[in-house]
Protein backbone atom coordinates (compact mmCIF):
# COMPACT_ATOMS: atom_id res chain seq x y z
CA UNK A 1 0.00 0.00 0.00
CA UNK A 2 2.81 2.39 0.99
CA UNK A 3 4.76 1.51 -2.14
CA UNK A 4 1.70 2.21 -4.25
CA UNK A 5 1.38 5.61 -2.64
CA UNK A 6 4.99 6.39 -3.42
CA UNK A 7 4.48 5.37 -7.03
CA UNK A 8 1.43 7.63 -7.32
CA UNK A 9 3.39 10.58 -5.95
CA UNK A 10 6.17 9.94 -8.45
CA UNK A 11 3.68 9.83 -11.28
CA UNK A 12 2.19 13.11 -10.11
CA UNK A 13 5.64 14.65 -10.28
CA UNK A 14 6.05 13.44 -13.83
CA UNK A 15 2.69 14.94 -14.78
CA UNK A 16 3.71 18.22 -13.19
CA UNK A 17 6.92 18.25 -15.20
CA UNK A 18 5.03 17.53 -18.39
CA UNK A 19 2.50 20.27 -17.70
CA UNK A 20 5.18 22.81 -16.99
CA UNK A 21 7.11 21.77 -20.07
CA UNK A 22 4.02 22.20 -22.18
CA UNK A 23 3.61 25.66 -20.80
CA UNK A 24 7.25 26.42 -21.56
CA UNK A 25 6.69 25.35 -25.14
CA UNK A 26 3.84 27.85 -25.39
CA UNK A 27 5.98 30.58 -23.88
CA UNK A 28 8.80 30.01 -26.33
CA UNK A 29 6.36 30.16 -29.19
CA UNK A 30 5.01 33.41 -27.80
CA UNK A 31 8.48 34.85 -27.37
CA UNK A 32 9.67 34.22 -30.89
CA UNK A 33 6.75 36.19 -32.17
CA UNK A 34 8.15 39.31 -30.51
CA UNK A 35 9.29 41.93 -32.95
CA UNK A 36 13.02 42.67 -33.03
CA UNK A 37 12.42 46.17 -31.64
CA UNK A 38 11.18 44.77 -28.35
CA UNK A 39 14.14 42.41 -27.81
CA UNK A 40 16.90 44.07 -25.72
CA UNK A 41 20.16 44.64 -27.54
CA UNK A 42 22.74 42.67 -25.56
CA UNK A 43 25.52 40.55 -26.94
CA UNK A 44 26.93 37.36 -25.51
CA UNK A 45 30.65 37.51 -24.79
CA UNK A 46 32.28 34.15 -25.46
CA UNK A 47 35.01 34.70 -22.90
CA UNK A 48 32.53 35.52 -20.16
CA UNK A 49 30.40 32.55 -21.14
CA UNK A 50 33.40 30.22 -21.11
CA UNK A 51 34.37 31.32 -17.63
CA UNK A 52 30.89 31.16 -16.11
CA UNK A 53 30.33 27.73 -17.66
CA UNK A 54 33.44 26.47 -15.96
CA UNK A 55 32.55 28.28 -12.74
CA UNK A 56 29.20 26.52 -12.73
CA UNK A 57 30.95 23.17 -13.00
CA UNK A 58 33.31 24.20 -10.21
CA UNK A 59 30.45 25.04 -7.85
CA UNK A 60 28.79 21.74 -8.68
CA UNK A 61 32.01 19.99 -7.64
CA UNK A 62 31.74 21.62 -4.23
CA UNK A 63 28.81 19.42 -3.28
CA UNK A 64 30.75 16.13 -3.63
CA UNK A 65 33.66 17.99 -2.04
CA UNK A 66 31.48 18.88 0.93
CA UNK A 67 30.26 15.31 1.08
CA UNK A 68 33.82 14.08 1.62
CA UNK A 69 34.64 16.95 3.96
CA UNK A 70 31.81 15.85 6.21
CA UNK A 71 32.10 12.15 5.41
CA UNK A 72 35.60 11.87 6.78
CA UNK A 73 34.55 13.41 10.07
CA UNK A 74 31.73 11.04 10.94
CA UNK A 75 32.03 7.50 12.18
CA UNK A 76 32.65 4.63 9.79
CA UNK A 77 29.08 3.42 10.21
CA UNK A 78 27.57 6.74 9.12
CA UNK A 79 29.70 7.89 6.20
CA UNK A 80 27.33 6.61 3.52
CA UNK A 81 24.54 8.45 5.28
CA UNK A 82 26.33 11.75 4.75
CA UNK A 83 27.35 10.95 1.17
CA UNK A 84 23.84 9.86 0.32
CA UNK A 85 22.32 13.01 1.76
CA UNK A 86 24.66 15.22 -0.27
CA UNK A 87 24.10 13.31 -3.47
CA UNK A 88 20.35 13.20 -3.13
CA UNK A 89 20.32 16.97 -2.59
CA UNK A 90 22.33 17.36 -5.79
CA UNK A 91 19.62 15.44 -7.60
CA UNK A 92 16.54 16.84 -5.85
CA UNK A 93 17.43 20.53 -5.98
CA UNK A 94 18.63 20.26 -9.58
CA UNK A 95 15.08 19.27 -10.49
CA UNK A 96 13.34 21.58 -8.04
CA UNK A 97 15.32 24.51 -9.41
CA UNK A 98 14.36 23.78 -12.97
CA UNK A 99 10.70 23.16 -12.16
CA UNK A 100 10.03 26.19 -9.95
CA UNK A 101 12.96 27.06 -7.69
CA UNK A 102 14.62 29.43 -10.13
CA UNK A 103 11.39 31.25 -10.74
CA UNK A 104 10.67 31.65 -7.03
CA UNK A 105 14.21 32.92 -6.39
CA UNK A 106 14.90 35.15 -9.34
CA UNK A 107 11.59 35.70 -11.08
CA UNK A 108 10.72 39.30 -11.85
CA UNK A 109 7.51 39.45 -9.81
CA UNK A 110 7.63 41.58 -6.66
CA UNK A 111 6.73 39.87 -3.42
CA UNK A 112 7.76 37.16 -1.01
CA UNK A 113 8.82 35.02 -3.95
CA UNK A 114 9.70 36.01 -7.48
CA UNK A 115 6.57 34.53 -8.96
CA UNK A 116 5.97 31.57 -11.25
CA UNK A 117 6.60 33.33 -14.53
CA UNK A 118 9.73 31.29 -15.09
CA UNK A 119 8.43 28.00 -13.76
CA UNK A 120 9.73 25.19 -15.92
CA UNK A 121 12.29 27.69 -17.20
CA UNK A 122 9.68 29.29 -19.39
CA UNK A 123 11.22 32.38 -20.91
CA UNK A 124 14.69 31.42 -19.74
CA UNK A 125 16.54 31.09 -22.98
CA UNK A 126 19.85 31.93 -24.50
CA UNK A 127 19.30 35.67 -24.64
CA UNK A 128 20.96 37.39 -21.71
CA UNK A 129 18.74 38.87 -19.00
CA UNK A 130 20.49 42.19 -18.45
CA UNK A 131 19.23 42.80 -14.92
CA UNK A 132 21.26 39.82 -13.79
CA UNK A 133 24.03 39.11 -16.31
CA UNK A 134 24.25 41.14 -19.51
CA UNK A 135 26.95 39.16 -21.31
CA UNK A 136 26.04 35.52 -20.74
CA UNK A 137 22.97 33.50 -21.70
CA UNK A 138 20.10 33.66 -19.21
CA UNK A 139 20.14 29.87 -19.03
CA UNK A 140 23.74 29.96 -17.92
CA UNK A 141 22.94 32.39 -15.12
CA UNK A 142 20.16 30.06 -14.06
CA UNK A 143 22.45 27.02 -14.07
CA UNK A 144 25.12 28.89 -12.14
CA UNK A 145 22.64 29.89 -9.47
CA UNK A 146 21.36 26.32 -9.37
CA UNK A 147 24.66 25.11 -7.95
CA UNK A 148 24.34 27.60 -5.09
CA UNK A 149 20.83 26.41 -4.37
CA UNK A 150 22.17 22.86 -4.24
CA UNK A 151 25.06 23.36 -1.86
CA UNK A 152 23.16 25.49 0.65
CA UNK A 153 20.90 22.74 2.04
CA UNK A 154 23.85 20.37 1.83
CA UNK A 155 25.68 22.50 4.38
CA UNK A 156 23.01 21.86 7.01
CA UNK A 157 23.65 18.11 6.91
CA UNK A 158 26.64 18.48 9.17
CA UNK A 159 24.54 19.63 12.08
CA UNK A 160 22.23 16.65 12.31
CA UNK A 161 24.72 14.09 11.05
CA UNK A 162 24.37 10.55 12.32
CA UNK A 163 20.80 10.82 13.62
CA UNK A 164 18.25 12.00 11.04
CA UNK A 165 15.76 9.72 9.30
CA UNK A 166 16.33 9.74 5.57
CA UNK A 167 12.66 10.23 4.65
CA UNK A 168 12.39 13.17 7.01
CA UNK A 169 15.58 14.58 5.57
CA UNK A 170 14.29 14.47 1.99
CA UNK A 171 11.05 16.24 2.87
CA UNK A 172 12.90 18.78 5.00
CA UNK A 173 15.26 19.56 2.11
CA UNK A 174 12.51 20.15 -0.44
CA UNK A 175 10.46 22.32 1.91
CA UNK A 176 13.51 24.22 3.16
CA UNK A 177 14.70 24.99 -0.34
CA UNK A 178 11.25 26.25 -1.31
CA UNK A 179 10.32 28.19 1.82
CA UNK A 180 13.65 29.36 3.17
CA UNK A 181 16.36 29.37 0.50
CA UNK A 182 14.25 30.68 -2.37
CA UNK A 183 12.77 33.65 -0.46
CA UNK A 184 16.05 34.72 1.16
CA UNK A 185 17.79 34.37 -2.20
CA UNK A 186 15.15 36.57 -3.73
CA UNK A 187 15.39 39.27 -1.06
CA UNK A 188 19.16 39.58 -1.40
CA UNK A 189 19.75 38.84 -5.09
CA UNK A 190 16.45 38.90 -6.93
CA UNK A 191 15.44 41.86 -9.06
CA UNK A 192 13.47 44.09 -6.73
CA UNK A 193 14.37 42.04 -3.69
CA UNK A 194 13.78 44.25 -0.64
CA UNK A 195 17.17 43.74 0.99
CA UNK A 196 18.84 44.31 -2.35
CA UNK A 197 16.90 47.54 -2.77
CA UNK A 198 18.12 48.57 0.68
CA UNK A 199 21.67 48.31 -0.63
CA UNK A 200 22.91 45.13 1.01
CA UNK A 201 25.97 43.65 -0.64
CA UNK A 202 26.43 39.91 -0.76
CA UNK A 203 28.78 39.07 -3.58
CA UNK A 204 28.57 35.31 -3.63
CA UNK A 205 26.34 34.22 -0.77
CA UNK A 206 27.51 35.01 2.74
CA UNK A 207 23.93 35.77 3.72
CA UNK A 208 22.01 33.68 1.23
CA UNK A 209 24.12 30.57 1.67
CA UNK A 210 26.19 30.55 4.83
CA UNK A 211 24.17 32.48 7.39
CA UNK A 212 20.98 30.96 6.03
CA UNK A 213 22.17 27.36 6.24
CA UNK A 214 24.19 27.94 9.37
CA UNK A 215 21.33 29.13 11.54
CA UNK A 216 19.04 26.43 10.21
CA UNK A 217 21.78 24.02 11.21
CA UNK A 218 21.81 25.39 14.74
CA UNK A 219 18.07 24.97 14.94
CA UNK A 220 18.21 21.35 13.86
CA UNK A 221 21.10 20.60 16.20
CA UNK A 222 19.16 21.99 19.16
CA UNK A 223 15.87 20.26 18.43
CA UNK A 224 17.08 16.91 17.16
CA UNK A 225 19.07 16.49 20.35
CA UNK A 226 22.50 15.16 21.12
CA UNK A 227 23.89 12.01 19.65
CA UNK A 228 23.95 8.87 21.72
CA UNK A 229 26.99 9.21 23.90
CA UNK A 230 27.18 12.98 23.47
CA UNK A 231 29.52 14.86 21.19
CA UNK A 232 32.52 12.84 22.24
CA UNK A 233 31.03 9.65 20.99
CA UNK A 234 32.44 9.24 17.50
CA UNK A 235 35.83 10.28 16.19
CA UNK A 236 36.58 11.19 12.54
CA UNK A 237 36.90 7.85 10.80
CA UNK A 238 38.96 9.05 7.83
CA UNK A 239 40.63 12.43 8.09
CA UNK A 240 42.29 12.17 4.65
CA UNK A 241 38.76 12.24 3.17
CA UNK A 242 38.16 15.49 4.99
CA UNK A 243 41.36 16.95 3.53
CA UNK A 244 40.35 15.74 0.07
CA UNK A 245 37.00 17.44 0.54
CA UNK A 246 38.70 20.64 1.57
CA UNK A 247 40.91 20.58 -1.53
CA UNK A 248 37.86 20.15 -3.75
CA UNK A 249 35.96 22.86 -1.84
CA UNK A 250 38.83 25.35 -2.12
CA UNK A 251 39.16 24.58 -5.84
CA UNK A 252 35.43 24.90 -6.38
CA UNK A 253 35.24 28.09 -4.31
CA UNK A 254 37.07 29.88 -7.11
CA UNK A 255 33.97 29.25 -9.19
CA UNK A 256 31.72 30.19 -6.26
CA UNK A 257 33.32 33.59 -5.68
CA UNK A 258 35.15 34.55 -8.86
CA UNK A 259 32.27 33.20 -10.92
CA UNK A 260 29.86 35.53 -9.14
CA UNK A 261 31.20 38.44 -11.16
CA UNK A 262 29.40 36.69 -14.02
CA UNK A 263 32.18 37.44 -16.45
CA UNK A 264 35.88 36.96 -17.14
CA UNK A 265 36.86 40.43 -15.96
CA UNK A 266 39.00 42.28 -13.44
CA UNK A 267 36.40 41.84 -10.74
CA UNK A 268 36.51 38.06 -11.15
CA UNK A 269 40.29 38.16 -10.81
CA UNK A 270 40.03 40.26 -7.67
CA UNK A 271 37.50 37.86 -6.21
CA UNK A 272 39.83 34.98 -7.07
CA UNK A 273 42.81 36.57 -5.35
CA UNK A 274 40.96 37.55 -2.15
CA UNK A 275 39.27 34.15 -1.95
CA UNK A 276 42.61 32.36 -1.98
CA UNK A 277 44.18 34.87 0.39
CA UNK A 278 41.40 34.77 2.98
CA UNK A 279 41.34 30.98 2.99
CA UNK A 280 45.10 30.87 3.44
CA UNK A 281 45.18 33.45 6.23
CA UNK A 282 42.35 31.75 8.07
CA UNK A 283 43.98 28.32 7.79
CA UNK A 284 47.27 29.59 9.16
CA UNK A 285 45.50 31.37 12.02
CA UNK A 286 43.61 28.29 13.13
CA UNK A 287 46.85 26.29 13.00
CA UNK A 288 48.44 28.90 15.26
CA UNK A 289 45.50 28.81 17.65
CA UNK A 290 45.75 25.03 17.82
CA UNK A 291 49.44 25.38 18.55
CA UNK A 292 48.71 27.84 21.36
CA UNK A 293 45.82 26.00 22.98
CA UNK A 294 46.41 22.38 22.10
CA UNK A 295 50.21 22.23 21.88
CA UNK A 296 50.24 21.07 18.26
CA UNK A 297 48.82 22.43 15.01
CA UNK A 298 46.25 19.93 13.76
CA UNK A 299 45.34 19.26 10.17
CA UNK A 300 41.62 19.15 10.96
CA UNK A 301 41.95 22.57 12.52
CA UNK A 302 43.87 24.00 9.56
CA UNK A 303 41.33 22.82 7.01
CA UNK A 304 38.44 23.96 9.19
CA UNK A 305 40.04 27.37 9.43
CA UNK A 306 40.54 27.48 5.68
CA UNK A 307 36.88 26.65 5.05
CA UNK A 308 35.87 29.32 7.54
CA UNK A 309 38.03 31.84 5.73
CA UNK A 310 36.53 30.91 2.39
CA UNK A 311 33.05 31.26 3.89
CA UNK A 312 33.85 34.65 5.39
CA UNK A 313 35.28 36.14 2.20
CA UNK A 314 32.24 34.97 0.22
CA UNK A 315 30.03 38.04 0.69
CA UNK A 316 32.98 40.41 0.39
CA UNK A 317 34.94 38.90 -2.52
CA UNK A 318 33.92 41.47 -5.07
CA UNK A 319 34.36 44.49 -2.85
CA UNK A 320 37.55 44.13 -0.84
CA UNK A 321 41.26 43.91 -1.58
CA UNK A 322 43.91 41.32 -0.61
CA UNK A 323 44.90 43.01 2.63
CA UNK A 324 41.38 43.24 3.87
CA UNK A 325 41.15 39.58 2.94
CA UNK A 326 44.08 38.73 5.21
CA UNK A 327 42.49 40.58 8.10
CA UNK A 328 39.12 38.97 7.42
CA UNK A 329 40.78 35.57 7.39
CA UNK A 330 42.67 36.07 10.64
CA UNK A 331 39.61 37.34 12.49
CA UNK A 332 37.23 34.64 11.25
CA UNK A 333 39.42 31.89 12.61
CA UNK A 334 39.51 33.59 15.99
CA UNK A 335 35.72 33.86 16.04
CA UNK A 336 35.01 30.37 14.76
CA UNK A 337 37.61 28.78 17.00
CA UNK A 338 35.91 30.37 19.99
CA UNK A 339 32.48 29.31 18.77
CA UNK A 340 33.58 25.72 18.32
CA UNK A 341 35.80 25.21 21.36
CA UNK A 342 34.19 27.45 23.93
CA UNK A 343 30.63 28.32 22.96
CA UNK A 344 29.52 24.87 21.82
CA UNK A 345 30.62 22.86 24.85
CA UNK A 346 29.34 25.54 27.18
CA UNK A 347 25.90 25.82 25.60
CA UNK A 348 25.73 22.13 25.01
CA UNK A 349 24.13 21.76 21.58
CA UNK A 350 25.47 18.92 19.46
CA UNK A 351 26.24 20.58 16.13
CA UNK A 352 28.09 17.49 15.02
CA UNK A 353 30.26 18.98 12.30
CA UNK A 354 30.25 22.62 13.41
CA UNK A 355 28.06 24.02 10.67
CA UNK A 356 26.86 26.85 12.89
CA UNK A 357 30.29 27.48 14.33
CA UNK A 358 32.01 27.74 10.96
CA UNK A 359 29.43 28.72 8.35
CA UNK A 360 27.03 30.85 10.35
CA UNK A 361 29.63 32.65 12.43
CA UNK A 362 31.92 32.88 9.41
CA UNK A 363 29.08 34.17 7.27
CA UNK A 364 28.02 36.76 9.84
CA UNK A 365 31.56 38.05 10.19
CA UNK A 366 31.98 38.07 6.40
CA UNK A 367 28.77 40.01 5.93
CA UNK A 368 29.85 42.53 8.53
CA UNK A 369 33.33 42.67 7.05
CA UNK A 370 31.85 43.51 3.68
CA UNK A 371 30.20 46.45 5.39
CA UNK A 372 33.53 47.46 6.90
CA UNK A 373 36.09 46.90 4.16
CA UNK A 374 34.14 47.41 0.92
CA UNK A 375 35.86 49.92 -1.30
CA UNK A 376 34.89 51.60 -4.52
CA UNK A 377 38.54 51.41 -5.54
CA UNK A 378 38.07 47.66 -5.92
CA UNK A 379 34.57 47.75 -7.36
CA UNK A 380 33.29 51.10 -8.61
CA UNK A 381 29.79 49.67 -8.96
CA UNK A 382 29.74 48.70 -5.29
CA UNK A 383 29.54 50.89 -2.19
CA UNK A 384 32.17 51.98 0.30
CA UNK A 385 32.23 50.38 3.70
CA UNK A 386 32.59 51.86 7.16
CA UNK A 387 36.39 52.04 6.99
CA UNK A 388 36.08 54.04 3.79
CA UNK A 389 33.73 56.61 5.14
CA UNK A 390 30.30 55.05 4.74
CA UNK A 391 28.90 53.73 8.04
CA UNK A 392 25.43 53.25 6.56
CA UNK A 393 26.59 50.19 4.65
CA UNK A 394 27.60 48.49 7.86
CA UNK A 395 24.15 48.97 9.34
CA UNK A 396 22.49 47.62 6.23
CA UNK A 397 24.69 44.53 6.44
CA UNK A 398 23.80 44.01 10.09
CA UNK A 399 20.14 44.38 9.31
CA UNK A 400 20.28 41.85 6.49
CA UNK A 401 22.15 39.39 8.68
CA UNK A 402 19.67 39.84 11.52
CA UNK A 403 16.65 39.42 9.25
CA UNK A 404 18.08 36.27 7.71
CA UNK A 405 18.99 34.82 11.10
CA UNK A 406 15.52 35.41 12.46
CA UNK A 407 13.60 34.30 9.41
CA UNK A 408 15.67 31.22 8.67
CA UNK A 409 15.59 30.03 12.27
CA UNK A 410 11.84 30.42 12.60
CA UNK A 411 10.85 29.13 9.19
CA UNK A 412 13.23 26.18 9.42
CA UNK A 413 11.84 25.40 12.85
CA UNK A 414 8.27 25.38 11.60
CA UNK A 415 9.18 23.03 8.77
CA UNK A 416 11.15 20.83 11.16
CA UNK A 417 8.38 20.62 13.72
CA UNK A 418 5.74 19.85 11.10
CA UNK A 419 7.78 16.93 9.80
CA UNK A 420 8.56 15.78 13.32
CA UNK A 421 4.88 15.67 14.19
CA UNK A 422 4.00 13.74 11.04
CA UNK A 423 6.71 11.14 10.68
CA UNK A 424 9.32 11.85 13.34
CA UNK A 425 12.69 13.26 12.44
CA UNK A 426 15.16 11.36 14.57
CA UNK A 427 16.01 7.71 14.11
CA UNK A 428 15.37 5.29 16.92
CA UNK A 429 18.11 4.73 19.47
CA UNK A 430 18.82 1.19 18.30
CA UNK A 431 19.18 2.34 14.71
CA UNK A 432 21.53 5.10 15.77
CA UNK A 433 23.78 2.60 17.51
CA UNK A 434 23.86 0.26 14.51
CA UNK A 435 24.53 3.21 12.23
CA UNK A 436 22.68 5.07 9.49
CA UNK A 437 24.41 3.28 6.62
CA UNK A 438 22.96 -0.09 7.51
CA UNK A 439 19.63 1.06 8.88
CA UNK A 440 18.72 3.79 6.37
CA UNK A 441 20.38 2.42 3.25
CA UNK A 442 21.10 -1.24 3.89
CA UNK A 443 24.73 -0.71 2.90
CA UNK A 444 28.14 -0.89 4.50
CA UNK A 445 30.73 1.59 3.40
CA UNK A 446 33.71 -0.68 3.83
CA UNK A 447 34.28 -4.38 3.92
CA UNK A 448 36.11 -5.80 6.87
CA UNK A 449 37.60 -9.07 5.73
CA UNK A 450 37.98 -8.50 1.98
Amino acid at each position, binding site marked *: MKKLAVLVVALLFVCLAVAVFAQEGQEIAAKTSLSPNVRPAVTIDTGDTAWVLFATALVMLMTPGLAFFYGGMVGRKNVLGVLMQCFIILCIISIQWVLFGYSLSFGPARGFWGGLQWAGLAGVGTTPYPDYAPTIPHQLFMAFQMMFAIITPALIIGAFAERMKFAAFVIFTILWATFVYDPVCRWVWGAGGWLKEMGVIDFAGGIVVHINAGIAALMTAIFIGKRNGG*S*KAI*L*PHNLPFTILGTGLLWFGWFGFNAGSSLGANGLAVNAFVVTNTAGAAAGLTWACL*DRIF*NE*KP*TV*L*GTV*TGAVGGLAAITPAAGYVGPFSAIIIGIVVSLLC*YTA*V*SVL*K*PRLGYDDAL*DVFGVHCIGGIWGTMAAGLFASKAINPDGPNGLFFGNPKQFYVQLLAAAVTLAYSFIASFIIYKAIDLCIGVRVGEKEEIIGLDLTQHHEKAYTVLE
Partner: protein
Amino acid sequence: MKLIIAIIQPDRLEAVKQELYRQEVFLITVNEVLGHGRQMGVAEVYRGTKEMGNLLRKIRLEIAVNEDFVEKTITAIVKGAQTGESGDGKIFVIDLVECVRIRTEERGHIAIG
Protein backbone atom coordinates in the same frame (compact mmCIF):
# COMPACT_ATOMS: atom_id res chain seq x y z
CA MET B 1 51.83 -28.71 22.46
CA LYS B 2 51.67 -25.03 23.35
CA LEU B 3 50.13 -21.90 21.85
CA ILE B 4 52.40 -18.88 22.22
CA ILE B 5 50.67 -15.49 22.05
CA ALA B 6 52.94 -12.45 21.87
CA ILE B 7 51.94 -8.78 21.95
CA ILE B 8 54.73 -6.66 20.51
CA GLN B 9 55.41 -3.18 19.17
CA PRO B 10 54.41 -2.90 15.49
CA ASP B 11 57.82 -1.71 14.33
CA ARG B 12 59.53 -4.77 15.86
CA LEU B 13 57.59 -7.22 13.71
CA GLU B 14 60.23 -7.53 11.02
CA ALA B 15 62.99 -8.13 13.53
CA VAL B 16 60.91 -10.74 15.37
CA LYS B 17 60.06 -12.55 12.13
CA GLN B 18 63.72 -12.72 11.16
CA GLU B 19 64.66 -14.14 14.57
CA LEU B 20 61.88 -16.73 14.34
CA TYR B 21 62.96 -17.81 10.89
CA ARG B 22 66.49 -18.18 12.20
CA GLN B 23 65.14 -20.62 14.80
CA GLU B 24 63.26 -22.42 12.05
CA VAL B 25 59.85 -21.33 13.31
CA PHE B 26 57.98 -20.54 10.12
CA LEU B 27 54.30 -20.94 10.90
CA ILE B 28 52.83 -17.82 12.49
CA THR B 29 49.59 -15.80 12.50
CA VAL B 30 49.73 -12.05 12.80
CA ASN B 31 47.08 -9.41 13.40
CA GLU B 32 46.81 -5.84 14.53
CA VAL B 33 45.27 -5.09 17.90
CA LEU B 34 44.80 -2.16 20.30
CA GLY B 35 45.93 -2.24 23.84
CA HIS B 36 48.17 -0.88 26.52
CA GLY B 37 49.96 -1.88 29.66
CA ARG B 38 51.64 0.74 31.74
CA GLN B 39 52.66 2.71 28.64
CA MET B 40 50.16 5.52 28.13
CA GLY B 41 49.13 6.76 24.69
CA VAL B 42 49.44 10.14 22.96
CA ALA B 43 46.60 12.65 23.35
CA GLU B 44 44.46 13.36 20.30
CA VAL B 45 42.56 16.57 19.59
CA TYR B 46 39.66 17.02 17.14
CA ARG B 47 38.48 20.63 16.93
CA GLY B 48 38.82 21.22 20.60
CA THR B 49 37.54 17.84 21.69
CA LYS B 50 40.35 16.13 23.53
CA GLU B 51 40.66 12.38 23.34
CA MET B 52 43.11 10.86 25.82
CA GLY B 53 44.20 8.08 23.47
CA ASN B 54 45.34 5.32 25.68
CA LEU B 55 44.83 2.35 23.41
CA LEU B 56 47.90 1.97 21.26
CA ARG B 57 48.48 -0.06 18.14
CA LYS B 58 50.18 -3.37 18.82
CA ILE B 59 50.86 -6.52 16.83
CA ARG B 60 49.66 -9.88 18.09
CA LEU B 61 51.45 -13.06 17.06
CA GLU B 62 50.09 -16.56 17.52
CA ILE B 63 52.45 -19.48 17.11
CA ALA B 64 51.59 -23.11 17.80
CA VAL B 65 54.70 -25.08 18.78
CA ASN B 66 55.78 -28.45 20.09
CA GLU B 67 57.35 -28.59 23.57
CA ASP B 68 60.93 -28.60 22.32
CA PHE B 69 60.38 -25.38 20.41
CA VAL B 70 58.82 -23.33 23.23
CA GLU B 71 62.02 -21.88 24.69
CA LYS B 72 63.57 -21.29 21.27
CA THR B 73 60.49 -19.35 20.19
CA ILE B 74 60.35 -17.27 23.37
CA THR B 75 64.04 -16.41 23.05
CA ALA B 76 63.61 -15.44 19.42
CA ILE B 77 60.64 -13.18 20.14
CA VAL B 78 62.40 -11.51 23.04
CA LYS B 79 65.52 -10.97 20.98
CA GLY B 80 63.58 -9.37 18.14
CA ALA B 81 61.14 -7.30 20.18
CA GLN B 82 63.14 -6.09 23.15
CA THR B 83 64.12 -2.41 23.21
CA GLY B 84 64.36 -1.79 26.93
CA GLU B 85 61.56 0.82 26.78
CA SER B 86 58.13 0.42 28.37
CA GLY B 87 55.66 -0.90 25.80
CA ASP B 88 57.87 -3.78 24.61
CA GLY B 89 55.00 -6.20 25.20
CA LYS B 90 54.28 -9.60 26.70
CA ILE B 91 54.38 -13.28 25.79
CA PHE B 92 51.72 -15.73 26.97
CA VAL B 93 52.10 -19.50 26.79
CA ILE B 94 48.96 -21.61 26.98
CA ASP B 95 48.37 -25.31 26.69
CA LEU B 96 47.17 -26.49 23.31
CA VAL B 97 44.76 -29.42 23.49
CA GLU B 98 44.63 -30.40 19.83
CA CYS B 99 46.02 -29.33 16.49
CA VAL B 100 44.68 -30.47 13.07
CA ARG B 101 46.21 -29.89 9.62
CA ILE B 102 43.17 -29.30 7.44
CA ARG B 103 44.73 -30.43 4.15
CA THR B 104 45.75 -33.92 5.32
CA GLU B 105 43.63 -34.24 8.50
CA GLU B 106 46.77 -35.14 10.50
CA ARG B 107 46.53 -34.45 14.21
CA GLY B 108 48.85 -33.80 17.11
CA HIS B 109 52.58 -33.11 17.04
CA ILE B 110 52.93 -33.89 13.35
CA ALA B 111 50.27 -31.32 12.48
CA ILE B 112 52.11 -28.50 14.22
CA GLY B 113 55.51 -28.67 12.49
